[in-house]
């Protein structure tokens, strides 16, 4: 793990912040969202061969209200790494990593569907879980649990 952090700091310098959370979980914060593709390529070439999960969290109170969480796995030696990328704005846009990891394709569609975060250069950025002309992004905090319209997909 230290090796990976060393590698990332060597490459990104100040752009990286290492956080230690609850139960010794290590998170790496990538401050500049536009460099996410570089970071993913770097990690992929250095053993983190699998993108296990990609999701987002909405923090309405913060200045950068969205946070993407890339969950990476290295198999040999076994390491897990959570890379967080804060995003600014109501409908932020970041680079798609689906050319780096094929599995990111659907994960990014899901994040777009649920949070309204757009991904640049995504091959097929459409809603995946809700139907196409659905309004609103359900996992945003201001979205009511019951939904704000009762109409069905037709």
């Amino acid at each position, binding site marked *: 793990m230290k090796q990976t952090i060393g590698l990332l700091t060597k490459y990104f310098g100040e752009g990286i912040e290492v956080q230690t959370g*609850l139960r010794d*979980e290590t998170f790496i914060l990538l401050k500049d969202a536009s460099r996410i593709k570089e970071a993913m390529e770097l990690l992929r070439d250095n053993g983190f061969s699998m993108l296990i999960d990609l*999701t987002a969290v909405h923090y309405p109170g913060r200045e950068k209200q969205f946070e993407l969480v890339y969950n990476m796995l290295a198999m040999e030696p076994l390491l897990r790494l959570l890379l967080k990328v804060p995003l600014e704005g109501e409908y932020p846009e970041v680079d798609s990593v689906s050319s780096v990891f094929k*599995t990111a394709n*659907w994960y990014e569609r899901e994040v777009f569907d649920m949070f309204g975060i757009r991904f640049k250069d995504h091959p097929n950025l459409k809603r995946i*879980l809700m139907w196409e002309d659905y309004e609103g992004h359900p*996992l945003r905090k201001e979205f009511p649990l019951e939904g704000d319209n009762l109409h069905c997909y037709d």
Partner: protein
Amino acid sequence: MTDIKKEIDIKTDRMIVNMGPSHPVTHGTLHIVLELDGETIVASHTNIGYLHRGVEKLGENRTYQKFIPFTDRMNYTSSINNNVGYTLAVEKLLGIQSPPRAQVLEVIACELGRIADHIVCIGINAVDIGAFTAFLYIFKYRELIYDIFSRMCGARLTTSYTRIGGVSRDLDDETIRLIRDFLKEFPPAIDELEALLTKNRIFYDRTRGIGEFTLENAIQYGYTGPCLRAAGLEWDLRKKMPYLGYENYEFEVPTGTRGDVYDRYLVRVEEMRQSVRILKQAIENIPEGPVIIEDPKIALPPKEDVYNTIEGLISHMKLIMEGVRVPAGEIYCATEAANGELGFYIVSDGETKPYRIRVRPPCFPIFSSFDEQVQGHMVADAVAILGSLNIIAGELDR
């Protein structure tokens, strides 16, 4: 795809075939649109979300305990593995461990759940290919597992067996006897299943070389579980990062070589045998002791205390009305469910409800590779591939 293109010189008009959302092979609600050239699949477009129930959003609005029933209904063929995965994540967040007896009970539950899941997957995959007999033979044993589950936790399918810090009920002698009987009866049944399918010429021809997937591709797509092992990588979280004391059990991780439907079937069959092996070790060595930790802030007090003492009543009421208070922070905790890596990413802000709860479903990344996998195959092969991937819509869409 190119090979088949070379063989077939005659091109026909592209035909669109629609499968689903209500179609017998989709086992649930998936929508697949296939583009065909004759009978060869040229392109496929999948459409999911027909069982999106908003579980993650509901989780943000429920207390930590009240989310347990939702985990049942995600992978409904092996709910108990989901229960264990979720409570392990919350326990990690709280920094506690369930007592040794509870851990062994959870292992027993997990392995029974794994067998039940593989039975459904193999049985249905065989039905889709045309072998109905195997389904009828093997489903009898699923009923036996259901009997064990209903004695363990009172429900056949939606178990909600685990609690934060342990399990809800202890095993009684009758259940242990049932499990012993099952372990005696089941290995011959696996042999029977293999006699029906493994060397069956039709089954072999329908599955060998179908849906072949290279290891690099599988890793690129984030495969986990039996599908990844069938592609040739010995990867099992029970071995690689043991939880619940899996390091104390002797078992092997089967792998395939070609990553096709047949290999996936073989890996699943072998995994059932290994699960029986784990169960045999676990059932003989159940330690004595409590099944849930004694912490009035986390675990419900025993019923006698609730009815007879004021402290018990208050802590019961507090837990039910308010819930468990979890320290602020975030964790990711993964377990090896029957389908692959089931992860829970929980963000807590110190309240009794999770701030964000994310379920990493095993079959979501697996299914995203379906479009690529079926290209160049026949329509009937798409059915075989879909069955072997074991897509559970509840888990896929959440």
